[in-house]
């Protein structure tokens, strides 16, 4: 990577004070501004703003199903886990970076670019993924053949269309850097030939933008098959297609491209690149004198898996209880726990999961022993040991995460009875309300008018005396977020709604101002499903099974 590029961007970030707060020059010299202020007044004024951000107390229903990962990364947006902000919009003295993907179709490039965008945005890095496929779909006519996908099409027309599409996409990327304070643009395309990759590198470095390639290689045919099935089912290219026809077309596309594709290697020796093999089984870094930000990307890659399971959110019963108290569950709470468990079991069984033991199985110890959940294998020393304390390796599995409070532990009892793994995590305890515990909003505004005014301006970052902010929670749960990304099976999180809001905020790429206003009802389970292109959220009603 060009030292020059890094340097010039450092300067611009430095010029903007690298996130420094406006320093008041009052006689008292007190530091009156907090870590979350901007130099200018770039931050939206939520109270006077006539936009959808300003609609206080939005209900979850308003945004269910809408993944924010493809929304424009406006310069005023702050990510949930962002540590500080700068006027230039760029963080970590990392400058501008283009992450260009490489790899044949069916290698999970789209999934990779979208999930990386989600993570980087959460860290507060202005990131956008540019899918060449979207540009192709927008501009190409219907009658194009696989010819359009190969590096040097035979027909002149295909060649022209191709060049036009690529130019449009690159142009948008440059605009993103230039006009939208963008920091990371992810270029999701096949980039089949070393000549392409070198030209791309040159084009961007000439503009002081560093380029990092991530090549996704798959040597395991089972993974490719699975990806092809997924693409035939849900790729935007095959909307309203017959599944078999779509599958055939997609495999035809891969076969047309495969002879052209050249793996990154000697010809790319001057490039910075990462080989991402079998979705993280092996990762190779070349010319890897990267900065903090790119190392974070690699850190994410180490934990990234293609997710097939869902994340379920359920509130724990009565979380309006006093923060400092830890009472056991009452009868109504037990009823809630029972109904929650039953409702989830019904739901996942409908979706073909088999990790719950049937009641009858429990009576039959022989049958129970055969189930993977209780199957205790004695591994020989010639075999790999399962990583110690690692959950969710099996796609068909469920793990319940909850806090260490007594009532949440008791809420999970019915799951524990069915041999589901329960993990208690201190990070999942509700947000500490501090001095405003047990107070209504009116009481708070009467007793602490100044603090309340500040809180209303930024409920995500504002921290009452002795309290935690949502932002504190977001920082605290980052290890859990990465662990969640590694797990292939289902996860149920039973926690206070303050915690659920933050998880939801990550998975659905909410801007941080929205997070405090999310509303989780106690009569629904929320299911987040992972998809290559965007995540979706759905409600599962909790039915009453006790009647």
């Amino acid at each position, binding site marked *: 990577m060009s030292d020059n590029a890094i340097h010039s961007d450092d300067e611009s970030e430095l010029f903007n004070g690298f996130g420094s707060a406006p320093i008041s020059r009052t006689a008292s010299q007190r530091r009156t501004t907090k870590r979350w202020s901007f130099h200018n007044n770039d931050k939206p004024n939520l109270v006077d703003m006539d936009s959808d951000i300003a609609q206080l107390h939005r209900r979850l229903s308003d945004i269910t199903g809408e993944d924010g990962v493809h929304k424009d990364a406006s310069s005023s947006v702050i990510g949930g886990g962002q540590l500080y902000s700068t006027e230039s919009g760029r963080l970590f003295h990392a400058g501008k970076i283009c992450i260009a993907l490489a790899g044949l179709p069916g290698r999970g490039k789209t999934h990779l670019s979208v999930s990386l965008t989600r993570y980087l945005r959460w860290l507060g890095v202005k990131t956008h993924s540019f899918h060449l496929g979207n540009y192709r779909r927008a501009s190409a006519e219907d009658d194009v053949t696989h010819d359009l996908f190969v590096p040097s099409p035979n027909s002149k027309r295909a060649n022209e269309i191709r060049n036009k599409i690529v130019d449009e996409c690159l142009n948008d990327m440059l605009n993103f850097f230039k006009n939208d304070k963008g920091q990371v643009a992810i270029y999701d395309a096949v980039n089949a030939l070393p000549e392409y990759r070198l030209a791309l590198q040159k084009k961007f470095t000439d503009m002081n933008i560093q380029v990092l390639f991530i090549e996704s290689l798959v040597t395991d045919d089972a993974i490719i098959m699975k990806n092809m099935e997924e693409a035939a089912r849900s790729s935007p290219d095959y909307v309203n297609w017959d599944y078999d026809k779509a599958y055939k077309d997609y495999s035809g596309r891969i076969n047309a491209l495969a002879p052209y594709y050249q793996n990154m290697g000697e010809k790319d020796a001057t490039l910075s690149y990462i080989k991402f093999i079998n979705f993280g089984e092996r990762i190779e*870094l070349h010319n*890897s004198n990267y900065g903090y930000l790119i190392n974070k990307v*690699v850190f994410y890659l180490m934990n990234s898996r293609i997710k097939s399971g869902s994340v379920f959110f359920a509130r724990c019963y009565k979380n309006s209880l006093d923060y400092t108290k830890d009472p056991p569950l009452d009868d109504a709470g037990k009823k809630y726990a029972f109904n929650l468990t039953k409702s989830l079991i019904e739901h996942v069984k409908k979706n073909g999961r088999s990790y719950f033991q049937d009641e009858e199985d429990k009576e039959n110890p022989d049958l129970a022993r055969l189930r993977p959940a209780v199957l205790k294998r004695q591994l020989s020393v010639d075999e790999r040991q399962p990583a110690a304390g690692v959950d969710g390796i099996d796609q068909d599995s469920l793990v319940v995460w909850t806090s260490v409070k007594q009532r949440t532990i008791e809420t999970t009892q019915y799951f524990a009875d069915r041999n589901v793994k329960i993990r208690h995590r*201190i990070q999942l305890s509700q947000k500490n309300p501090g001095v405003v515990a047990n107070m209504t909003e009116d009481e708070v505004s009467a007793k602490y008018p100044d603090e309340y005014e500040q809180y209303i301006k930024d409920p995500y970052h504002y921290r009452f*005396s002795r309290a935690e902010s949502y932002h504190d929670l977001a920082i605290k749960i*980052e290890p*859990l977020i990465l662990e969640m990304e590694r797990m292939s099976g289902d996860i149920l999180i039973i926690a206070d709604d303050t915690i659920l809001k933050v998880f939801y905020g990550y998975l659905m790429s909410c801007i941080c101002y929205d997070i405090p206003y999310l509303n989780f009802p106690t009569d629904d389970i929320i299911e987040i499903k992972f998809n290559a292109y965007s995540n979706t959220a759905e409600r599962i009603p909790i039915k009453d099974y006790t009647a």
Partner: protein
Amino acid sequence: MPVYSISHVENVRVCVVMVGLPARGKSLIAQKIVRYLSWLSINSKCFNVGSYRREIATDTVVDAEFFDPKNEVGMNYRQEAITRATTDMMKWFSDDNGVVGILDATNSTRDRRDKILKLCRENSIEPMFLESFCDDQDLIMQNILDVKTTSPDYLNRNNEFAAEDFLKRIKFYEQVYETMDQKADADLTFIKLVNVNSQIILNRIESYLESRIVYYVMNLHIKPRSIWLSRHGESEYNLTGQIGGDSNLSERGWRYAKRLPELVLKSLGEENKHTNLTVWTSTLKRTQQTSSFLPYKRKLQWKALDELDAGECDGMTYEEIEKTFPEDFKARDDDKYEYRYRGGESYRDIVIRLEPIIMELERQENILIITHQAVLRCLYAYFMNVPQEESPWMSIPLHTLIKLEPRAYSTLVSRIKADIPAVSTYKEKGTSQLGELETGTASKSRDLIRDSELAK
């Protein structure tokens, strides 16, 4: 990023097995991992096979010949040492709830690694091999210079003998060395660092904690370098005893700022006087003013280096705090590391926001950091492995330049005091008065003024 704690999963255990020829920075990496994880409150320990060997091989001469693969006596001792180290490590995992254990040895043959692998697997642990592979002769020679001056094997030996003997020892290891291989070891969890970090291979990283260690190691380099730390010059607030704020330097503070370039040159020494440093400051005026006379071109301001935010107490004196918030004042003395000021920060909060700084610091070479008391305590604690309950009570006086030189077996510390008086900003436990008491705990355990010391 993270971490109040690395997420707590039951029975998390990671066994890191170092691999590589001597003088490839293995011990340095191992020590750093332990220091970093301890800083994050994760129970970790390094088991250095060399020190086991030194303990048992007392009746024989340990020179290069000892490491000849044909030397049976040597081989026996070395086998015995590794057996003892691994046994202790397994015991530590089970008895002391160890989380990350590191086996620091060359483990240079596949046969040896297989034995360790089996032993770990018998204890239901899948080890993570961490190989430092290096064929860059300059880097190796630098490491040899470092090792021969600090290695316990060459205590009381002259440098010439040490260098020659050490090179010979490496030759013996090279005869049998088998590097980690993508095909032959495809089934193992391993990390291979080629020529420090110019190429890295990560194979089958399977838990979050492992990924966390890898992430840290990726940011390391083993080139020799130094880090200079200084507080800002005395500020107007220091004079009045107020905490926090964003005040200007006092007259004496400005004098320190003017003296600082001279102190840095003195610390660099004649032969390195042209070394180009990068200066990092916080975004507060007093650190920038302190850096203003330094001749170096690269000066970066980091928000993360700002002083601990005292929230509602910002701008108050300790006496005022004691009067206004008596309970808080006591609570802070009782657990200074965890205590968070009303609307402000705790020491633990600082450690979290310093993470990007630590990572960047590991990646860089010669850096001079001008920052604040609490932040310096946390940075110093990281480099010197100071336990959490002590670090907030360390005395770091004004107008003193501290130099840290990370080495394989320890970090060297030296200090140069500018001859410019300043107030003391040190507050003893249980009082609101400033200044170090004769009988105080700090002056005994964590006096940082001594001219030079070799800290563990």
